[in-house]
């Protein structure tokens, strides 16, 4: 109920953008769905842009058109939500998606990304995800990767850019 009031106040002045920081985290699951549906309806009706901050990938995939994945203060992957959820490029995003429970495998142990997010006081050199990444190489430990484009998605990962390079070379060799 209170969160409904907050949404009402937020929309009262007819804003162009609503920034919602974990709007459903403090609510029960049943109410969460209701509040998200309400927020989505109102945004569509009034053509308001929504920036939705959450750690619930289910909500993101249902509500948003584009998404950003952040890690240690950086955006590591961004692009159309559908594309990222269906075919995540960055090993961290893949880890997040693999950590979701699967309906087909009840009781199965969930995937876990080893380790935890580094503290701001000692961010690792190079790619901040390298200590937890199974693909990490010396290159990853030394310098932060630039963004590369894979489909319509921007990814900051050497593994992905090397893969794209390899594919390009293979295609060139074929033709």
């Amino acid at each position, binding site marked *: 109920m*209170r*969160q409904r*009031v*907050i*949404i*009402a*106040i*937020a*929309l*009262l*002045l007819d*804003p*162009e*953008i*609503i*920034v*919602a*920081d*974990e*709007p459903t*985290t*403090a609510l029960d699951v049943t109410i969460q769905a209701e509040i998200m549906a309400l*927020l*989505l309806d109102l*945004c*569509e009706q009034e*053509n*308001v*842009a*929504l*920036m*939705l*901050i*959450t*750690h619930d*990938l289910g*909500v*993101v995939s249902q*509500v*948003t*058109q*584009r*998404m*950003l*994945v*952040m*890690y*240690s*203060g*950086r*955006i590591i992957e*961004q692009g159309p*939500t559908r594309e990222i959820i269906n075919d995540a490029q960055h090993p961290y995003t893949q880890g*997040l998606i693999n950590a979701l429970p699967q309906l087909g495998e009840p009781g199965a142990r969930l995937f876990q990304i080893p380790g*935890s*997010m580094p*503290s*701001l*006081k000692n*961010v690792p050199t190079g790619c901040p995800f390298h200590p937890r990444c199974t693909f990490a190489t010396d290159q990853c430990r030394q310098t932060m990767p630039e963004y590369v484009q894979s489909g319509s998605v921007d990814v900051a990962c050497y593994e992905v850019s090397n893969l794209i390079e390899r594919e390009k070379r293979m295609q060139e060799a074929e033709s």
Partner: protein
Amino acid sequence: MKSDTPLLEVKNLDVRFAVRGGDLTALRGISFSLDKGERLGLVGESGAGKSVAAFSILNLIARPGYIAGGQILFEGRDLAAMSERELRKIRGNRIAMIFQDPMMTLNPVLSIGTQMVEAIKHIVGSARKRRGILR
């Protein structure tokens, strides 16, 4: 007609926190844009900088945090370089914010009606003032 410039464009944003022993970098080189009516998701583990990114859009980073570089362009104007007074016209009015915990946002001592009217008064009041200046 659809314009080419996005409604909100964050360019190469750096946010740091000044603490003893040097600065901690909370956001590094953040760039993204948001079009009119678009819905954008921001995901990551706790501590990834999601909330700092959200707060910085409204230039609401409290000390010792500060915007160390980059731009936050809303309709072409840089929120990172705006005065508190100008920002107040945008916060709530043009860009609204919904926080995680409604208990923190609402004041339990005041009625809901009073708090809603307060939000409107804040803007109408400043509009009246604007008209006064124009006269």
